[in-house]
């Protein structure tokens, strides 16, 4: 089930969990609005490093990287990921980056 939502002035299709269904429609200016929706008021350079990596890795692999893969790929610590995207880091960062939620278990 999909529906439409307006994110930072862009009308986009979202799935029943709220994720943007087509990663290609995502633009930088949507990230801040999406972040606010999950309780993150300001995107710092560290947030952006993770968001950019998610976009790049998804484009290259066709799959959203898991936390474990992100820490191995860009050397950021697990603890830091939980500070940047508290509670549900995997889903929150994917939501902000406009990619599907991660499917891997680790």
């Amino acid at each position: 089930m999909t529906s439409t939502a307006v994110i930072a002035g862009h009308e986009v299709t979202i799935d029943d969990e709220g994720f943007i269904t087509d990663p290609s429609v995502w633009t930088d200016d949507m990230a801040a609005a999406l972040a606010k929706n999950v309780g993150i008021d300001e995107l710092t350079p560290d947030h952006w490093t993770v968001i950019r990596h998610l976009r790049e890795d998804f484009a290259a692999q066709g799959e959203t990287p898991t936390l474990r893969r992100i820490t191995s790929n860009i050397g950021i610590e697990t603890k830091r990921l939980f500070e940047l995207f508290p509670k549900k880091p995997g889903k929150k960062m994917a939501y902000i980056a406009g990619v599907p939620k991660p499917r891997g278990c680790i």
Partner: protein
Amino acid sequence: MTTETEVMKPAFLADETDRKVCFICSKGNLDMAYPALIMANGAVGEGIETHIFFTFWGLDMINRKTMNDLKFTLLGNTAMHPPRRFGISMPQWLGGLPGMTAMATRMLRKQIGDQGVPPVPEFLSMLVDSGAKLWACKMTVDMMGLTLEDMHDGVSEIINVAEFLELSEGAQIVFV
């Protein structure tokens, strides 16, 4: 009047609750160590309060002397088959031959590693960094003549059954 910055909480955050899950690890075999660690990792990543209580042979998972060297044996494992050769059982006597446990352990470690899953001590650190809590069972620690200093750095405390039952009140408990 609404503005463009109106907050719309996505549906995946709507289920945020006080959910809590406690895993009890009672086995020290390599193949019995991973299920709880993987499920606990999933739980903590979903924002669920996560605890792991290590008791009996499960203490080997957090004992510095053993945690790097958990083993996997063919013996008593009727599901064992050659890699990717489903339906062909390994004869049990094979597991008793010298070197078979070491070989099976090496193979399983490699298969787990190939999935991007870290070795047990590193996995425990990752869980603690994610916010999970690790607890050692008092009776087992006493029985084995150990102290907190013998445990993985991530272990919070040595607690008894009563304390475990207190902290797991209202939690879902998974026994491995």
